[in-house]
């Protein structure tokens, strides 16, 4: 990853990371309009803070750190719970070749999962978003959130357990595995 201050065009950086940070933002705010605003805020903040990058870690790690903090600041300012995910955004999650009815089932599941993740305690929510939605490694998450590796492992473990309990509770106690299979093969 090249240095922002060097010859790297910031536009190239935006182009490379726009989908990643948009997904990060959406994971926190759960609606397209706020996600777009928040994503712009992230890039603006990165642009303004680029002179503060000390090369003590990778640029991507530093960027994720600022991005997550920007998302948390945004939530604090809004002081409201995330809204239900919009179906038109969730439509992008399923292949177009599927039957409409099964696509709706998938959309609800995806939106449902995203909503449940945002309702987790912050310490579990952040690691789950970074691991499952942004596909960062344990090590990258540890650096981005400035946590020990062991803490990341523990929080992922506990966060998933809490998420599973919540999913089972909302499904009325049905077997999670059975439900998942039904959703994937309607």
């Amino acid at each position, binding site marked *: 990853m090249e240095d922002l201050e060097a010859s790297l065009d*910031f536009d190239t950086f*935006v182009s490379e990371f*726009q989908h990643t940070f948009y997904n990060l933002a959406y994971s926190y705010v759960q609606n397209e309009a706020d996600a777009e605003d928040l*994503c712009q805020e992230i*890039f603006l903040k990165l642009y303004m803070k680029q002179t503060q990058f*000390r090369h003590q870690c990778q640029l991507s790690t530093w960027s994720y750190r600022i991005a997550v903090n920007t998302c948390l600041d945004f939530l604090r300012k809004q002081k409201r719970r995330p809204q239900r995910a919009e179906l038109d955004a969730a439509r992008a999650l399923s292949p177009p070749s599927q039957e409409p009815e099964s696509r709706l089932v998938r959309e609800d599941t995806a939106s449902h*999962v995203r909503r449940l993740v945002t309702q987790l305690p912050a310490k579990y929510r952040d690691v789950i978003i970074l691991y499952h939605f942004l596909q960062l490694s344990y090590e990258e998450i540890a650096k981005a959130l400035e946590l020990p590796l062991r803490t990341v*492992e523990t929080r*992922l473990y506990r966060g998933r357990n809490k998420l599973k309990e919540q999913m089972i509770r909302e499904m009325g106690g049905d077997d999670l595995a059975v439900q998942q299979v039904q959703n994937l093969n309607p």
Partner: protein
Amino acid sequence: MQCNKYRILIHKQLDGRATELEIRQLRQHLDTCPNCSRYQEETTALMESLRLTPLPAPPGLQACVAQRIQNQRREPSSRKPSLTTGLLLGSSCIAAGCLVLLFFFLGVDFLSLPANIYEHLSLFISNFSVSLESWLSGLWNVWARFPSL
């Protein structure tokens, strides 16, 4: 409890971080523990649920970011006034504080001082503050330009 240890191993295995030995040990345990087997199925299903297709960024996002950066560039001094004000205030307080301490240690009786001395003092504090603010501001600019120092 042993099962707790194996449940952690289940997560480790699903994340691709378990060693061969750990995987063997886990399989042996799962063959004999229906609760952990069920836990593994549920956790696998959960991980599958979390495997969501990434959302594409809106088409105009990059242009909007570029526009916002342009707007920000047109207001280069948006932070400077508050920084300058802060430095000036800080410098004034430092100067005034130093003078008070100086008079205190010299044992000066403020009430016996001639009236015009306060004019001279306020002028001194003002000039000292401006000089100190310029010095601190220069240091700040150097630090911002060469953050590796």
